[in-house]
C-alpha cells in the first residue's frame, strides 16, 4: 500500500513537470501533495499529514493558481538543457549508492527513543502559532498578489 502511494506520488510529480497545460500540471501537483499527505497519515504521523494536505493542497495550490492567471492555459515554450536529465539521474544514483552502502551504520547507531510523540498533545498553543505563521504568510502573499494584479488608475482624473 505504501509503495503504491509513493509510486503514484512520483508519477504525479513527473506528470506535473512534463504536461504542457498549466491547469493539468497544477492539478497533478496538488494530487501529489494529497497522496504524500495520505502516506504520512498511513505512517501514523497524522498531524504532519494533515498539515501537508491543508498547506500544500489547500494553500500553496491556490497561490499557484494565481500564478496561472498570469501565464495562461499553456506554459511558455522554452529550450530545455540536455544535460539536466543526466545530472539529476547521476545525483539520484549517487545518493542511493551512498545510502545503501552506509545503511549498516544507520542501523547500528539508532538511539533510543528520546521523547514520546506528544509534541503537540500537551499544549495547543504550539499548533496555534504554527497555523498562524502559515496563515499569515499565505494571506500576505494573496493580498499582495491581488494588489499586483489590479490595473493602475489613471492619474489625470
Amino acid at each position: 500500500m505504501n509503495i503504491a502511494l509513493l509510486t503514484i506520488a512520483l508519477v504525479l510529480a513527473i506528470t506535473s513537470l512534463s504536461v504542457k497545460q498549466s491547469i493539468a500540471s497544477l492539478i497533478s501537483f496538488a494530487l501529489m501533495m494529497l497522496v504524500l499527505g495520505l502516506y504520512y497519515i498511513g505512517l501514523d504521523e497524522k498531524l504532519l499529514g494533515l498539515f501537508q494536505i491543508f498547506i500544500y493542497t489547500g494553500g500553496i495550490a491556490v497561490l499557484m493558481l494565481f500564478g496561472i492567471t498570469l501565464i495562461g492555459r499553456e506554459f511558455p515554450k522554452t529550450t530545455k538543457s540536455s544535460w539536466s536529465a543526466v545530472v539529476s539521474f547521476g545525483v539520484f544514483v549517487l545518493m542511493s549508492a551512498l545510502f545503501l552502502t552506509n545503511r549498516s551504520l544507520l542501523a547500528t547507531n539508532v538511539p533510543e527513543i528520546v521523547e514520546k510523540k506528544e509534541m503537540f498533545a500537551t499544549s495547543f498553543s504550539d499548533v496555534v502559532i504554527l497555523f498562524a505563521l502559515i496563515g499569515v504568510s499565505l494571506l500576505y502573499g494573496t493580498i499582495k498578489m491581488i494588489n499586483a494584479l489590479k490595473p493602475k488608475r489613471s492619474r489625470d482624473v
Partner: protein
Amino acid sequence: MFEIDMIFAFALFSVGLYGISSNRDFLRIFFSLEMLMNAVILMLASSAHYLGLSQNISFAYMIMILATLEAAVGILIFAAAHKFTKVVIADDLGAQK
C-alpha cells in the same frame, strides 16, 4: 521498508532537481522547489517512523513553514515582475534592466 522510502525520496529529489535545471518559467521552478522540500520532508518522516528519531518531525514542520513562506514571497516576486516587465520566463528577467 525504510530503504524503499528513502529511495523514493531520492527519486523525488532528483525529479525536482531536473525540474529546476531544465525549466525556465517561474511556475515550474516553484513546483520543482516544492518537490525538493517534500523529498526532504519524506526522508525526515520515514526516518522518524522507522528509526525512532522523533525529533525529525519538528524539522519537518519547520521545513513546511519555510516552504509556505518561500511560495508566498516567490509568487509575489513573480507577480511584481510580470506587472512591470510582462515576463514569465526567469532568464528574460535579467534582460529587462
